[in-house]
C-alpha cells in the first residue's frame, strides 16, 4: 500500500465532501486533486491522532477555502460541525489485526452506505448536505447512515462472537 492506494481508497469520499461545500463538480474535482497533492507533501506531519479521513477532509476543506480566497469570491462558511453523531473514533480500541479487519469492512461497504457513513462520521456533515449530495432528502441520508451503522455494529458483533 502506498500513497496511490490511499488516493484510490479515499478519493471519492474527499471528492463528495468537497462537493458538499462547492456544489460545482469541476471545482470539487480540482480541489480534491490539489488536496491530495498537499496531503502527499504533508504526510509526514500526519501524527495519527485523528482518523486519516478526518485529516484528509480537513486538508480538503482548507484547500477549498484558500482556493476561494484566492479567487476573491464569497462563499458561505457555514460548515458548522454536527455534534453527537453517535460514533466515536478511538485510538487503540483493539489490536491492530482486528482494527485492520474493521477498516477493510468499512472500505468494502456498498455505495451509498460507505460514502454516507464516512461523510457523516469523519466529515461531520449534516444529513441535509449529505442528502443533497446524492440528490436525495435528509431523511434518506439519515436512514442510510443508520443502516450503515447497523451493518458495522453487526459485523463487529460477529467478530466478537467468533473470538468467543
Amino acid at each position, binding site marked *: *500500500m*502506498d*500513497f496511490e492506494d*490511499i488516493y484510490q481508497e479515499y478519493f471519492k469520499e474527499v471528492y463528495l465532501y468537497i462537493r458538499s461545500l462547492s456544489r460545482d463538480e469541476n471545482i470539487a474535482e480540482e480541489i480534491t486533486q490539489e488536496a491530495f497533492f498537499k496531503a502527499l507533501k504533508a504526510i509526514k506531519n*500526519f*501524527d*495519527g*491522532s*485523528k*482518523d*486519516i*479521513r478526518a*485529516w484528509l477532509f480537513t486538508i480538503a476543506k482548507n484547500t477549498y477555502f484558500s482556493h476561494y480566497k484566492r479567487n476573491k469570491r464569497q462563499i458561505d462558511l457555514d460548515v458548522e460541525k454536527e455534534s453527537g453523531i*453517535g*460514533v*466515536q*473514533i*478511538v*485510538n*487503540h*480500541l*483493539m489490536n*491492530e489485526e*482486528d*482494527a*485492520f479487519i*474493521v*477498516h477493510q469492512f*468499512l472500505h468494502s461497504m456498498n455505495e451509498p452506505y460507505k460514502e454516507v457513513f464516512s461523510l457523516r*462520521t469523519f466529515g461531520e456533515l449534516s444529513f441535509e448536505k449529505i442528502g443533497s449530495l446524492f440528490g436525495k432528502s435528509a*431523511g434518506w441520508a*439519515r*436512514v442510510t*447512515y*443508520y443502516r450503515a*451503522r*447497523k451493518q*458495522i*455494529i453487526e459485523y463487529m458483533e460477529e467478530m466478537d462472537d467468533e473470538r468467543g
Partner: protein
Amino acid sequence: MMKEVKCTIIQDVLPLYIDEVVSQDTKEMVDQHLQHCEVCQKVYEKMKRKLYIPAENKASIFKKINKKMRKKKVIISMVSVFATAIILFGAFAYVFYYERVIPYSDDLMRIESQNDNQLVSRYFGESYAGVNLTHPMPLEINGEKKNVSFIYYTETIADSPTRMLINNEKNLNEQEYIFELPESEKIDAVYYADFDVEKITSEKDSWDSVVKRAVLIWEK
C-alpha cells in the same frame, strides 16, 4: 387506544426518533410501541448504542505502508547489489578477458629465423593477452603452392602493447616475448590475419579468404 402499528414502520422511523427530529405524535407512537414490542426494543437499543470504531490512522495504515516500503527497499537493494555485482563482473571480464586482435604493425611483431632455422615470432610490446597461430598448410597464392602459417596476437584492456592499465613500473618486463612457430622448417610464408578456426571448420570462412585479407609478414 391507537391502532397497532407495524414493526417495520416503527423501525423505519427509529433513526428520526433517536435523533429527536420527529413530531410529538410520532414520538408518542414509537414510545407506546416500544413499551410492549421486544423486537423493536432490541432494534432500538442496538441503533441507539454508541458505535466505537478504531481510528484508521498512522498506527494502522502507515505501519502497513512502511512494511511494504521496507520490503520494497530490501528488494530494491538486493536487486541493486546483484546488478552491481553483475556490472562489476562484466567490467572485470571486459578488462581482463575481452580479447581483440592487435592490428599488425612491423615495429610490434616480427618473424625471425634463428640459428637452427627455427622460426620465432618476436613481440616488442609491453604485453599481450594471447597469440594464435596455425601449423603450416598448403595454400595456392597467386598460382603458387605455398606452405603458409597464420598468426595473430590479441590484447585485452589489461594486457595490451602499451599496457596502460597495470604498468606501474617502467620496463618491469624487460623480458622479450618470443614464440616458436611449429614445424617452421616447412613454412614458406607467414601471414598476419585474424582468423577463427571454428568458422573455418563450419565452412563460414575459408583459409583462402583469410589469406586475402592477411598481411604477409615473412617469406622464405
